[in-house]
């Protein structure tokens, strides 16, 4: 059987042996090269751009200006720092509300009951809806003149609100929209965590006479801890980068007073509405570092507490 007659077969065998021997990198390399080319190169370019005064046309000449852009951005109390503050307010407000509501709904859905399937289907719908369409939908509902929101309030004698068009109400309204769309995600994640818990500790606490709240606070919550952190990290990353609903409802620059301009919207506007690539890259590098720092803090704390 093993007589080597056909050179084609041996060549294939040699190749096959080689491929199997190096399968680790043969499998992983294409994806990593793709990601590397699409991320590492652009990221390096962004770092370079942040040190130049590139602006205007894509093909225009640009000059190396060192850290001038960074100094300019750090001194910018008109657009940059308010955008940082709004990014934190949006992310903090949305994630906090989503965690509280999500935990409540997940606990209600925890024990099986009739019709559970329908509730799950219902909460899945906002989650898969296209964010731009969601933005447009809420834009109609929150329209000060013809929207259903104000009509609803008028039934209870509450005066109409400006919602998205108000300078102070726009950001909270958009936090509400984000909460509407993404609370289901938290529910699903926490529910997956809850169903994987064993029943014994909860049972033991109940037999010992612990109240529902005590059982949740001192038994379920500590057991669910890693799931809660995963939920916060996943949602936090996305919330920091929220763009679609903000841009779809308020347009360029986050509205005429920049009332919903977060770092992502600001950077996008600098890049593609004003073609100020140098400053835009600077803002993006700082934004990126901020995200990494926050994620590092969350995961570091998690390790330290173990």
């Amino acid at each position, binding site marked *: 059987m093993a007589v080597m007659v056909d050179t084609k077969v041996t060549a294939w065998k040699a190749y*096959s042996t080689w491929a*199997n021997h190096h*399968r*680790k*990198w043969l*499998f*992983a390399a*294409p*994806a*990593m090269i*793709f*990601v590397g080319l699409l*991320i590492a190169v*652009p*990221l390096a370019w*962004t770092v370079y*751009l942040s040190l130049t005064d590139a602006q205007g046309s*894509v093909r225009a000449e640009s000059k190396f200006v060192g850290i001038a852009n960074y100094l300019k951005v750090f001194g910018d109390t008109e657009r940059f720092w308010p955008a940082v503050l709004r990014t934190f307010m949006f992310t903090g407000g949305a994630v906090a509300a989503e965690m509280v509501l999500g935990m409540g*709904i997940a606990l209600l859905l925890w*024990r099986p009951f009739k019709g559970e399937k329908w*509730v*799950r*289907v*219902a909460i899945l*719908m*906002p*989650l*898969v*809806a*296209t*964010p*731009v369409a969601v933005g*447009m*939908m809420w834009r*109609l*509902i929150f329209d000060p003149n*013809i929207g*259903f929101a104000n*009509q609803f309030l008028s039934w209870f004698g509450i005066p109409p609100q400006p919602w998205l068009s108000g300078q102070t109400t726009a950001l909270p309204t958009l936090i509400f929209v984000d909460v509407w769309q993404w609370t*289901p*995600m938290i529910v*699903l*994640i926490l529910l*997956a965590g809850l169903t*994987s818990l064993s029943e014994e500790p909860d049972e033991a606490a109940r037999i010992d006479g612990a109240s529902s709240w005590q059982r949740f606070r001192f038994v379920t919550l500590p057991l669910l801890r890693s799931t809660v952190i*995963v939920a916060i990290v996943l949602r936090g*990353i996305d919330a920091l*980068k929220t763009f*679609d609903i903000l*841009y*779809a409802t308020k347009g360029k620059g986050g509205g005429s007073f920049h009332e919903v301009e977060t770092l*992502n919207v600001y*950077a*996008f506007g600098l*890049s*593609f509405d004003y073609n100020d690539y140098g400053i*835009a890259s600077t803002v993006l*590098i700082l*934004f*990126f570092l901020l995200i990494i720092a926050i994620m590092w803090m969350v995961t570091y704390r998690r390790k330290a507490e173990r």
Partner: protein
Amino acid sequence: MTDTVTTHGVPEGALPEPTPPQRPRRPHKLRAYPIFRVVVLTLTVLLFIAPLVWMVVASLKTNVDIYDPDKTFFFTPTLENYANVLGRNNYFVFIFNSFWVALWSTVFSLILGVPAAYAMSRFTMHRSAMVVLMARIIPGVSLLVPWYFIFANLRLVGGFGVLILSHMFVALPLIVYLMMSFFDSLPTELEDAAQVDGLTPIGAFLRITLPLSVPGLATAGILSFIFSWNNFMFALVLSGANTKTLPVAIFNFVSYASIDWGSLMSAAVIVTVPIMVIALFTQKYVVSGLTAGATKG
């Protein structure tokens, strides 16, 4: 296994019977809970679904009716908005564009991502996995500027290729992440047995592991299709007049002075309903994908 869960789940109501005299207050509290639960969950469902229903309702109204508070609930439905969007605004092209980009970015990402996830899972390549997962953290805008630089110089902006590439940036990390946790949970015994029986490691991957991974592949494929379909920012910058995707087309609706609400809402329905139908029929996979990695430490 499921037996123990349900029998433990039931005692809520059944508990008072074995211990009647000691706890007089308990039965009362336990009977109130189911009612509370039904009421709150009904309200929750209503809150999540009502806005979507409202969107559909508005898409069936004429613009005059939308402006008329008396016709909030009672009106004569019309398909005029849909005719306007699909006919005059040529939405069939945008539907095709969205579908085309989502399909190919998903297919290519699966081809690149699944073997990579397999290698990273079986050889525990944590550092390499981190590189791919970084793509989930990086703000998309920071890549758009250099991409735009490069692709504009290559005169590729506006073509399908660039759009598919950019959507793969979203899909690939997602697929690697999902498939890694899937392969982590897949026992290696079958592969080992196949290798003992004479298959090469790659052969074992192709003939044993991949067929076993169909649920994982379905999850990863569906989610990556949904995310690509819903993506707005990349297409906003990189698509041209002929390759515009649905979210961008909807966004362009409001660039004009006054908003044609009826048509806008029917366009919103056209983009969201297909994805909701897909999610409805593949609910199990969508949920398992969205919650992947949630229960690991």
